[in-house]
């Protein structure tokens, strides 16, 4: 691993340095075509520095005619080493450029995606609005890796420079990671929501349109709109959600498509993603919880506010969940995600049912997990992880407290709304029995004002709930996932340690055999040692890889969290502002009436 040494050091710096500076030089030469001078950002995280660390023969992989590598069926890319996702996309990209004929399948486009993201950086100015901060995220991930591989990439990439350039001119669908996923209801509200959904994407697409004007690359936007639609009846009824995707990502078969999904399908997706990716330290966004109470009420056809609210809340939560999934650059690549979005009918995810066999298995696993967690005492070499974990736990605690309080606020506001309504009616009655006409009129006006206040409080409570409480609930769940990724890292560490212990034992056995002079068993012992040595190396590398992934994921998560919180809280404050403005209007209308009493 010649390159591993060289790459690991600078890689650390990468976290600090702005990628552009380091990468501008050689990359520009490599990939810049006069035609695509906007592509300032080396889209060339061609070789993943992580790959260097992780793969046995990273460079060799790169150097080998990429054809060899890329001839593997694309599905390999999604095998259990998602790290490859970073490695191979770039590599196959170069391959693609060389041998465009071989790769007609749309899957190839997956490789170009990360490229696209990196390409986006130069567009920052255009994308300032909602996108720039978002755009930066994926690029950060990639550019970090890009830099170190520069020296090594040069050799391979130079061959492809022309084609690269050309290719990036034409085909680089810049995957824009911001997927706007929207779940909307099949109702008049639906239109409104769709329009609202359309707006952020419209604003996103506007710059993209202008971007494409200035630069030949079309920006890709992915936008998901989810509506719900009830099917079946009685206790067999279930809510089917219409997931509508709008995208220009080439990896999908068409530009817009809609599928029907059940709640268990969403859970199934999570299970699949979690099984595959949590092992490697990824933070997989969790879906909303099951709620027997809520769904039963809806099924029974109880027509009241609480069940309507429940449905809307669930729909919105599912939408946010999907949005987070597609926003995650690695998860987006997962074929399960694509299948979920695209495939017309999916097999039922039975193992998500609580009382299924799989459900019990899960419970047992979880129990053993938590038990083992308690017993693992990790020898933490990197204090960053320890500190982060503590931060995460403290934050979790605070968020939970906050959530309880916001719930309490929602409850009290609802109560206030109801009581205001009662008061309004009472004042109206009082006004009607008052015999002074001016006072009577003023009192009925007061009743009207209080009536409007009831409405206002009701809306405010809804805003409290949807904007604020749901945000907190989401992040409490997400922090759980973050914790899981830390746990995963601990597990890989444990595995490594166990392997080391095993190796030690094997060596002792060999020593004993040597001493006891039993040559026949010696060979076996030697074989064992070799086997375990390999395992130790493997596990150590796994641990490092997972650590790196966890670290990267946590940073990404924190950025996303910061953005999310700011956005949502600002939205919430704006709704408060609107309420106050309404309030002022109402009381200003009332004041002259009160003054007119004589």
């Amino acid at each position, binding site marked *: 691993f010649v390159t591993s040494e060289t790459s690991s050091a600078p890689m650390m710096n990468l976290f600090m340095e702005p990628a552009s500076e380091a990468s501008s030089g050689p990359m520009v030469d490599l990939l810049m075509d006069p035609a695509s001078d906007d592509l300032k950002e080396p889209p060339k995280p061609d070789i993943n520095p992580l790959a260097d660390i992780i793969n046995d023969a990273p460079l060799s992989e790169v150097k080998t005619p990429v054809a060899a590598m890329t001839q593997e069926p694309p599905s390999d890319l999604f095998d259990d080493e998602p790290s490859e996702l970073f490695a191979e996309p770039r590599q196959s990209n170069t391959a693609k450029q060389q041998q465009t004929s071989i790769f007609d399948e749309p899957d190839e486009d997956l490789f170009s995606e990360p490229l696209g993201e990196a390409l986006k950086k130069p567009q920052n100015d255009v994308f300032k609005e909602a996108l720039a901060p978002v755009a930066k995220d994926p690029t950060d991930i990639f550019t970090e890796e890009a830099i170190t591989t520069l020296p090594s990439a040069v050799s391979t990439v130079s061959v492809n420079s022309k084609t690269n350039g050309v290719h990036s001119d034409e085909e680089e669908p810049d995957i824009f990671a911001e997927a706007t996923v929207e779940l909307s209801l099949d109702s008049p509200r639906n239109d409104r929501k769709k329009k609202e959904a359309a707006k952020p994407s419209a604003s996103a697409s506007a710059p993209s349109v202008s971007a494409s004007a200035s630069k030949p690359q079309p920006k890709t936007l992915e936008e998901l709109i989810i509506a719900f639609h009830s099917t079946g009846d009685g206790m067999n009824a279930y809510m089917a959600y219409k997931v509508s995707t709008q995208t220009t990502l080439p990896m999908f078969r068409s530009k817009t498509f809609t599928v029907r999904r059940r709640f268990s399908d969403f859970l199934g997706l999570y299970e699949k993603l979690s099984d595959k990716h949590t092992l490697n330290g990824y933070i997989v966004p969790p879906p909303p919880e099951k709620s027997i109470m809520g769904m039963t009420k809806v099924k029974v056809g109880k027509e009241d506010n609480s069940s309507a609210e429940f449905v809307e809340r669930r729909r919105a939560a599912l939408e946010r969940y999907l949005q987070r999934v597609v926003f995650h650059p690695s998860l987006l690549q997962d074929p399960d995600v694509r299948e979920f979005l695209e495939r017309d009918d999916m097999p039922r995810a039975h193992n998500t049912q609580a009382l299924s066999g799989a459900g019990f298995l899960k419970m047992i696993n979880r129990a053993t997990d938590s038990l083992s967690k308690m017993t693992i005492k990790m020898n933490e070499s990197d204090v960053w992880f320890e500190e982060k974990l503590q931060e995460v736990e403290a934050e979790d605690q605070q968020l939970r407290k906050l959530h309880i309080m916001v719930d309490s606020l929602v409850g009290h506001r609802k109560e206030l709304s109801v009581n205001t309504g009662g008061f309004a009616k*009472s004042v109206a009655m009082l006004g009607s029995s*008052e015999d002074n006409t001016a006072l009577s009129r003023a009192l009925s006006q007061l009743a009207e004002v209080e009536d409007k206040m009831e409405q206002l409080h009701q809306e405010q409570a809804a805003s409290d709930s949807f904007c604020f409480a749901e945000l907190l609930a989401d992040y409490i769940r997400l922090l759980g996932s973050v914790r899981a990724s830390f746990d995963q890292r601990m597990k890989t560490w444990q595995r490594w340690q166990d392997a080391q212990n095993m190796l030690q034992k094997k060596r002792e056995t060999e020593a004993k055999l040597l001493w006891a002079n039993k040559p026949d068993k010696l060979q076996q012992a030697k074989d064992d040692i070799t086997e375990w040595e390999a395992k130790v190396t493997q596990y150590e590398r796994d641990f490092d890889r997972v650590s790196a992934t966890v670290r990267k994921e946590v940073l990404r998560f924190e950025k996303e969290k*910061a953005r999310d919180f700011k956005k949502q809280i*600002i939205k919430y*404050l704006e709704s408060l502002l609107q309420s106050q403005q309404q309030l002022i209007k109402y*009381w200003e209308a009332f004041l002259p009436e*009160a003054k007119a009493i004589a």
Partner: protein
Amino acid sequence: MHVVLCQGLDDGPDFLSEEDRGPRAVNVDLQTDATLQVDISDALSERDKVKFTVHTKSTLPNFKQNEFSVVRQHEEFIWLHDSFVENEEYAGYIIPPAPPRPDFDASREKLQKLGEGEGSMTKEEFTKMKQELEAEYLAIFKKTVAMHEVFLCRVAAHPVLRKDLNFHVFLEYNQDLSVRGKNKREKMEDFFKNVVKSADGVLVAGVKDVDDFFEHEKTFLLEYHNRVKDASAKSDRMIRSHKSAADDINRIASTLYTLGTQDSTDVCKFFLKVSELFEKTRKIEARVAADEDLKLADLLKYYLRESQAAKDLLYRRGRALVDYENANKALDRARAKNKDVLQAETSQQVCCQKFEKISESAKQELIDFKTRRVAAFRKNLVELAELELKHAKGNLQLLQSCLGVLKGDT
């Protein structure tokens, strides 16, 4: 019309100001003159009683001095009120309703619970909640002072009641009036008396009045009283929810503060700013609830009591009418039998006089009541609207400036 405290003809303290300075008579518009001015200049809250310092300024010859003060307790106010009620002479007047008993139980309980729960919350939270509760205690205290004062002012303003001897004793006698609260037996007696009275009241109310004015007033007051009672209860509930919501915002603000102090990242600074905002808006929300309490809930409560007093007046008149009619019948019977005619005649005369006296003053009282009521409602509703606007605008400004800062940062 100007607002008057029993402090003479000058304007009372600005009701629109942040603090409630001094007692206030918000529910009545009284004209006082220099001959008799009463106010509660001070009050002391002890373990389970409140001591009011009643201060009088008078140019009336009945008093030894022109200005003097005495210390009175709640029971003595009640004694005074009851003496009015029991006095036959005052049957034709609306007796100003007695002030409600000072009730600090709820507040005290909360303070106690806070003390017990001290260990479970952070120091900041504890001090904040303590300040909250102390403010609440103070507010209740001020209210009770005001209500006692209003009672005295009403008496002092009433042309007849102000001359009452008991009242003068109350104002002047600077030693303990030795008024003891009613003991159990007396309370039982009261209870039975009330039962009898209400039964009687129903009977009396059933009697149709010849006078249209009073007939109208009877139906009006009955309906009005019930509706005011309902409105008063509902307003209390509404305001309580409002206060709970404000409390929640308070706690949210402190948790956000904790979140914000965990780190110095952008997000944390954001949290700190939002926490600050919530702190401020909460204060405003609490004020809104408090003002609604003053202007709306207190108003309704007061008129609940006054309308009851008016109903009582009508009852007394009704009773006198029934007595009068009975006396008439008795006289007719006596004349028919020609026995005890003189006796019957005198009793009929007495009843007649009593009835007419009551009727005359009652009419005026009821008209005054109406005027007072309309004026008080007007004043309070205007002030309520103005305060709501003031606070909403304050809130709006806070939100706008905070949003400006937050959006600018991101």
